[in-house]
Every structure is written in structure tokens, then in C-alpha cells.
């Protein structure tokens, strides 16, 4: 057995830094890998040819000439894709207004972003795993505010009618509010509000609480680090 370069040794940390890797310090993570990340991995260049690739499901055929530094499935430039879980309060807030079914703070830590990375996609995914009584035949109004806890800052970042909560909902956040500036924030603090369409306040509070408990929110963050891209081939003179 050869001595291994420990991540804590100067050689080990220099090696990880050169590859832009910051592994978890503690025991192995147990968080399941989201299906979207498996899908993106299988469609990434060369992944299927890397012997011993893990994962589930059938292999996806590789296309011959993928665009460099481009995430084809998401349609954006990029060479780093991160799946970030909501780190906000586990329980939803008690809605202040009668017509509101759900008021839920969301918090995403973005401090891992390096200044040299350019954001190309920030996609919020909301998965309600909706109870049957709420999923069936009920339309909704969804609003997203910048804010913290029960404090909402200004007008909604977005406001959309949602016909049903059975399928995961996706919202593009790049260019909105805190992600509209040139500088990238260290975190993203949002408040989600959900009301029945038409202001129907006849929903039992217990069902709304159940909806809030089952909500899983996550961000898909794509960045481009241009230094890691191969420059385009020069044309012959």
C-alpha cells in the first residue's frame, strides 16, 4: 500500500485546490443524489466512457461533438452545476392573511461561489408532494418575495398562477431582485406565499400545514468558469 496524500496535508490540499475541489470534512454524506444531477452527469461529455461509472438506469448514448462548456440539457453555458437544498426553517409560518394557505421562508447558502464564476442559471424547484385533497382540481397563486422570516422586502420577485401542485414547479431566478445585479450574493433569502386561486379561504388549515411540511425546495445553480474552458481552435491563416 502506498501512502496516500491526505486532504489535510499541504500536498493533498494543494492538489484538491488545483482541481477546485473542497470535499466534506466529516463522515461520508448521506444525502441522496437528485435525479436531475444523475441525468446531467449521464449526458455530460465522456461520462459513459469513464469505466466504473455509478448510477441507476440505462446509459444514454453520447453525442459526438458537444459544445464546450455548455450544459445542453439546460440550454446554458457552464462547466459547474450545483444542486443546493433549502436551509430555511423546517416549519412554515402561520399565514397572517386569511386567504393565504402557505407562507414559507426559504434560505439558500451561495457562499461557495467564487468571484471568477459567472452565474448562467439559477433555477428554483418546488416539489410539494401535495396531499391528494390539495392536488386535485385546485388552482393556486404563487408569489415569491425577497425577505427574511416573516419580513417581506418590497414587491414580489415573481407572481404566477399555478394550475396544480402534482408536478415539481420550476422558476428561473437569474435577473430577478438579488440576482439581478452584477455581484453575486452570499446567500438568497426568500419567502414563498401560496394562496388558492380566486382567494378561496375555505381550505382547512390542517391541509395547508401539511402542504408546507411536505414542500421541498432546491436551487439548481449553473456557473461558467471561463479559465476552465478550452479556447476555440484558431482558424488557419
Amino acid at each position, binding site marked *: 500500500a502506498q501512502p496516500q496524500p491526505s486532504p489535510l496535508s499541504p500536498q493533498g490540499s494543494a492538489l484538491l485546490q488545483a482541481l*477546485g475541489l473542497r470535499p*466534506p470534512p466529516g*463522515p461520508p454524506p448521506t444525502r441522496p*443524489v437528485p435525479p436531475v444531477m444523475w441525468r446531467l452527469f449521464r449526458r455530460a*461529455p465522456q461520462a459513459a466512457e*469513464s469505466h466504473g461509472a455509478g448510477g441507476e438506469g440505462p446509459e444514454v448514448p453520447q453525442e459526438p461533438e458537444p459544445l464546450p462548456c455548455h450544459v445542453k440539457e439546460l440550454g446554458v453555458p457552464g462547466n459547474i452545476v450545483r444542486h443546493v437544498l433549502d436551509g430555511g426553517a423546517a416549519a412554515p409560518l402561520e399565514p397572517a392573511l386569511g386567504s393565504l394557505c402557505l407562507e414559507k421562508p426559504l434560505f439558500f447558502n451561495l*457562499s461557495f461561489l467564487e468571484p471568477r464564476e459567472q452565474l448562467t442559471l439559477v433555477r428554483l424547484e418546488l416539489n410539494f408532494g401535495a396531499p391528494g385533497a390539495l392536488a386535485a382540481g385546485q388552482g393556486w397563486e404563487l408569489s415569491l418575495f425577497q425577505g427574511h422570516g416573516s419580513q417581506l422586502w418590497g414587491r414580489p420577485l415573481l407572481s404566477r398562477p399555478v394550475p396544480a401542485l402534482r408536478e415539481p414547479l420550476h422558476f428561473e431566478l437569474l435577473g430577478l431582485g438579488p440576482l439581478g445585479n452584477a455581484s453575486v450574493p452570499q446567500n438568497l433569502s426568500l419567502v414563498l406565499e401560496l394562496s388558492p386561486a380566486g382567494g378561496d379561504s375555505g381550505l382547512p388549515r390542517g391541509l395547508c400545514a401539511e402542504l408546507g411540511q411536505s414542500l421541498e425546495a432546491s436551487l439548481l445553480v449553473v456557473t461558467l468558469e471561463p479559465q*476552465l474552458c478550452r479556447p476555440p481552435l484558431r482558424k488557419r491563416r
Partner: protein
Amino acid sequence: ATHLAPPEGLDPPCKARQLYINFRDVGWHNWIIAPRGFMANYCQGHCFFPAATKMSSFNHAVMQSLMHSVAPTATPPPCCVPVKLSPISVLFYDNSDNVVLRHYEDMVVDECGCR
């Protein structure tokens, strides 16, 4: 003619050799999700004249190998190095408990040459 022939007992000509990087071997298997490893390969072998003219070599390397063949102590042979590489993508956990997919250029040696 005797000068131009590579000395006996030396490495075979420069070419790509198989090297499988197993993340378990380097202790990274706990946080790299996929792949478990990949065929990275490496380059090894001599770049003596005339073998250096038969592979992907710079003209300079051909001339250097020629000079090495006539004056071995004064001029070293060219180096056997990767000339064509391809990328891979790696899926892993970072230190913020995020699942990350990162694209890395130039991770697999496809072809070697004398430079």
C-alpha cells in the same frame, strides 16, 4: 546507420499506456459520487530517431531526435508527452453538502507524441 538505431534494452517507442485512476485508491471515494474511476492513461516510451518521425511529433522534435542520435551526450531526446486529451465530468459532494457536477478538460490521454 549504427548511430541511428536506438540502443538495445530501452523502452519501446513513445505511446499511450493504460492508467486507471481509481478514486478508492486515493481515498476520494467517500465524496466522489461518479464515476468511481476513469481510464486516464499516460505517455511513456522513447523518442529516438527515426521512431520520432512516425508519430505525432513537432518538426523540432524530429530534428532534436536526429541530433540526439549523432551526439547522445550533448543533446537529450525529445519528451514523450500527451498531444491529444479529452474531458470528463465528475459528480461529487462539496463541503456545503451540495451535489456538484463539474466538467474537467484534459483529463484523459488519447494520443502521445514527441515534443
